[in-house]
């Protein structure tokens, strides 16, 4: 995915009403570019599927409020992730209060059985979700950004506001846990 830079969006209003552009990056450009990223982050940061839509919406409302804090040279993805992380944290607490069972009832699960590939992907996603749920917040964030969003270590360092060595260290530990988790899953099923 191409990064939104000041050069690509400067002076270009991507269909917003007047007054919604703040700084050199417009809300709409960032939304168009990064909506899927924010959505995926919410899911991977442990937000319940039935709350992902609300959480993504809140993240963009926060983004709108804090857009002027986004420096022109900074990575928009990193900035959005830091926003998403805080929103996700809040939503996880909401989910704990409401209870997973009630949320599962609210979630409209599609009964449609798809082709083999779709089922395989769903299974892989469920396995991944189970692994992410047992990771602590710090390692989960690094793992999600590195392995799923394929961000570079410096980008992750910026997004999480931790130093580069900490990123490498957390990633190493998270990878180790992932391999252990898959081994345990394999042993459990096979």
């Amino acid at each position, binding site marked *: 995915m191409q990064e939104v830079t000041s050069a690509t969006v400067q002076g270009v209003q991507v269909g917003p009403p007047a007054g919604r552009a703040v700084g050199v990056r417009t809300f709409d450009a960032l939304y168009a570019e990064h909506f899927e990223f924010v959505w995926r982050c919410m899911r991977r940061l442990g937000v319940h599927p039935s709350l992902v839509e609300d959480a993504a919406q809140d993240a963009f*409302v926060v983004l709108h*409020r804090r857009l002027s*804090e986004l420096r022109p040279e900074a990575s928009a993805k990193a900035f959005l992730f830091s926003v998403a992380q805080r929103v996700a944290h809040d939503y996880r607490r909401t989910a704990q209060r409401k209870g997973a069972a009630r949320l599962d009832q609210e979630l409209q699960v599609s009964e449609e*059985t798809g082709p083999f*590939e779709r089922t395989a992907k769903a299974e892989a996603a469920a396995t991944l979700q189970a692994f992410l749920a047992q990771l602590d917040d710090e390692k989960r964030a690094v793992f999600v950004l590195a392995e799923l969003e394929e961000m570079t270590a410096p980008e992750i360092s910026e997004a999480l506001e931790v130093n580069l060595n900490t990123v490498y260290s957390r990633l190493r530990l998270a990878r180790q846990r992932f391999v252990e988790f*898959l081994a345990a899953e*394999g042993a459990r099923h*096979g």
Partner: protein
Amino acid sequence: MAELPPHAKALLALARDADDPPADAKVRVQRAALDAIAAGNHTLVGPPSTSSLPPTLRARFWGVATNKAGLFVSAVLLVGSSWAAYRVLTEPALPHREPIAMLESQPPQARPLVEPPDATAASERAEPTRADQVRPAGAKLGRHATKMSATEPQDTLAAEMLELLQASAEIEAGHVHEGLRLLERYRAHFAHPARAQESAGLAALAKCQLDPRAAEAEARTFLAAAPTSVLASRVQRACELEATP
């Protein structure tokens, strides 16, 4: 840094786009977000942002913050220097000495900070244990290391799924023989496969594409064993079989 093994990468590759939003969510969420912004719904999560304050208030905020920070640093310095002064006044000037009576009976001996190991302990330390001999130098014997070696099987669900997906893709693309070869490889790789049913379904599917008549028996066996499989309808179509009630 150690890379992930292939089966772990395979699972991540499968899962990577599984969490993408539904097609209509983008427009819906944007509309809802803009409504919330228009309604002035700014009381969401996240720390308060000074950028949303008017310039005068912002200047005042930073003024107060700077003053408070200065006060805090002064307080820390004051407490620190008081503590240091207290330690200097209350600590004995010289290190602890043994009583004079002992000094007379024994020659003064500097007390080492770390007790030397006794002879038995020294000999135990000199002879490496069996575990040390097996373990490479510098290797850590953590909880996870033991767990890894005890339970790590080579055949995982993700690796199985990846091989089956490759076979499925070949069959779908019309490369039936290549698909069957990959299914053979799958059966050779995994002695006790967790996805034997899917493998059988794909094999029936491939063979039906080559010769529906010859593969009919195999297809019926698969459909009888797995009537609700996600491959059932594909096998029925490929083998030109009637749908099961």
